[in-house]
């Protein structure tokens, strides 16, 4: 009886875990934090390229 109870609760926990993993994987890296850091890295790269260009011109 208690084994059945633990088993059925465990199945519920597995359903929760699998759903979170599947939905998160489907959503992809679209979190606002991820997009912000991506944008920041891109800005840094552009700044560095611009600095290098200016150095070459001098």
């Amino acid at each position, binding site marked *: 009886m208690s084994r059945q109870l633990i088993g059925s609760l465990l199945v519920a926990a597995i359903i*929760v875990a699998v759903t979170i993993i599947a*939905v998160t994987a489907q*959503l992809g890296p679209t979190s606002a934090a991820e997009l912000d850091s991506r944008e920041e890295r891109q800005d840094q790269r552009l700044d560095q390229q611009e600095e290098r260009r200016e150095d070459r011109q001098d």
Partner: protein
Amino acid sequence: MDLVQGNPTEVKVVLASVATALAIYQLVLAAIFYRKLRPSFLDGGPAAFTHRASGDTIAVLLIVVAIMCLSYFELEDSAFHAVTGFLLLVVLAVKVVVIRWWHSAGRFLPVLGISVFGLLVATWASTAGAFLA
């Protein structure tokens, strides 16, 4: 403090999807304790206990999702979603009242349960399902 760190839609989609997945499991558990299904590995008693525990979890998730909907989004964003979501919470509240206090209306529990499931799937499909598609 922003608990969802600027991702209210994503968090809402995950929570609503978990509630919907658990609701499908609820149907299976209900079929077992109403003896529509008789698997050898699970009796009615444990199935009923897990159904109640899982149902409590779903209720908490739905309340959190509803608060997020009202806090972050406008009602005009999706009228169908707003109507099904509102009806879902009403039917769920009636179901909780019947389970806890109004025992004489217990014969309506299967109908209420199926209604909660149908409304939950419709509410999920109208936003989370469309967002994931």
